[in-house]
């Protein structure tokens, strides 16, 4: 399927590139911008970006696959990312992950059939004093327990939380 970069994106891209003495340094911010559109990096989007920037496709793909925040498959409206590192682990992250797997009936890396939730475990989010922590799209939710988690899920189910544009 053909993918066309919008003029709006191109204008933004040119502005971002001007912020660096070597325009290709803007690659990561540009990919972030591009991912906003569909929530993941499609092959054809990477192709179109590489062509626009005059970079080899392999350079773009290498960067996309190196960094964990680039999704290579569609994600749900709410991407639940539970920290699994040491402080959150001690504060009960495994229990929260188990509860999410059970309530959403999906495993890590999967998306619910209604397209609402994707579940992931992630490494340290840098908010260890408020463990356990979960990031939903770009927002942090801290000092979680089962009650707070259930309330959050309800809020998301009823669209009371900002979701990813889709």
């Amino acid at each position, binding site marked *: 399927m053909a993918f066309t970069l919008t003029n709006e994106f191109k204008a933004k891209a040119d502005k971002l590139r001007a912020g660096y003495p070597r325009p290709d340094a803007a690659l990561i911010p540009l990919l*972030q911008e591009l991912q906003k559109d569909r929530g993941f990096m499609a092959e054809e989007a990477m192709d179109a970006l590489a062509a626009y920037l005059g970079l080899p496709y392999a350079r773009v793909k290498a960067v996309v696959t190196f960094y964990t925040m680039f999704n290579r498959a569609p994600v749900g409206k709410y991407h639940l990312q539970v920290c699994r590192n040491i402080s959150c682990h001690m504060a009960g992250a495994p229990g929260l992950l188990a509860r999410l797997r059970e309530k959403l009936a999906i495993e890590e890396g999967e998306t619910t059939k209604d397209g609402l939730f994707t579940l992931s475990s992630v490494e340290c989010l840098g908010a260890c004093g408020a463990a356990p922590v979960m990031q939903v799209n770009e927002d942090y939710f801290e000092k979680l327990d089962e009650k707070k988690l259930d309330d959050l899920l309800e809020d998301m189910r009823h669209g009371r939380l900002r979701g990813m544009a889709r």
Partner: protein
Amino acid sequence: MENILLKDKVAGLDGYFAAGGYKPLKKALGMTPADLIEEVKKSGLRGRGGAGFPTGLKWSFIPKDGQGPRYIVCNADEGEPGTFKDREVILKNPHALIEGMAIAGYAIGASRGYIYIRGEFAAEARLLEEAIADARGRGLIGANLLGSGFDFELSVHRGAGAYICGEETALLESLEGFKGQPRLKPPFPAVKGLFASPTVINNVETLAAVPTIIEKGGAWYAAIGTPKSAGTKLFCVSGPVNKPGVYELPLGVAFRELLEKHCGGLKEGKKLKAVIPGGSSVPVLTAAEAMAVALDYEALAAAGSMLGSGAVIIIDETQCMVKLLQVLARFYHHESCGQCTPCREGCGWIEKILDRLEEGRGSAADIDLLCSVADGMKGRTICPLADAMAMPVLSFVKKFRAEFEAHAAGRCCPPEPAGKH
């Protein structure tokens, strides 16, 4: 003692001004760069990201003559497990960082600065961008700062989720739009850094201390803390204590004081088992070792560990050390950039061996194998990530060997919750 980094009511530009903010910049612009660097050297300030390298000395490595651009880069890629101090500085005192960068830029002759912030800190990145825009509005960022003739441009660059980008040369690769794989040194960034130009990379906490050092003088700052570990440090405490959080205290403070006085001790019913005093990469201390140690670069080195990022992770008696090491091994394996064989393969092997031990499929020989793999990784890679895996492995096994032996003998902890009640 008055806080230098964590203050109330200074998050906005007006509040920062009211507290005397940006006066240090004015003072700095009236000094020569050489005098500025001398003042920072005199302060004894050392890198707060983990390595503890003297900041003034790092600045002095920038070639004095020579053409072309220079860069000042702030490392805000806070990702060392247990660390959450830079985020606190950004949220509470962003202008101290911005002002510190402008002063550092002037000192090393850099008219361009970048703040490389981890991608997950989206709100913090927005906040910094707003703070920079506010500063620009008052002529504190941009052309001809405060009429001095010195130009300084500053922008925020978000990462995209890779722990390794906290290593300074990997950060530079990432900032240039590549995979974050560390570079061979030499050449050091001071000679050939960002875009092949002389570059200084400093941590958020380091840069945010600079304005106060310039305002009050290097000698004033050096009088805080211990002779070799000068100044205040942000200690971020996580784990089962009553008041986890970030505490700004003079270096050399006793761990016991941090735990009991500031953090309110362990939660009721919990007993201290171990402490990781400087982020997940440093050797673990037993409860007895921790309770006797002071928190500064030298005292922690003498105790066989490191101050690192100041991330103090509290571990209580209910925790299984084999399980916790498995959690860390999964992390380092996931974050290894893959370019050096000992790290790429070693982290994976260590994770696999720990999986076996944790699940009761291991043997006594696996414990020695763990140590042998860790030994084979140390000091044999381009960057310290391999050592950051090896140090917890060797210290966990050395200090809590009985737990590893119990696992090897089949006495395992209860499995993790599976998701069905």
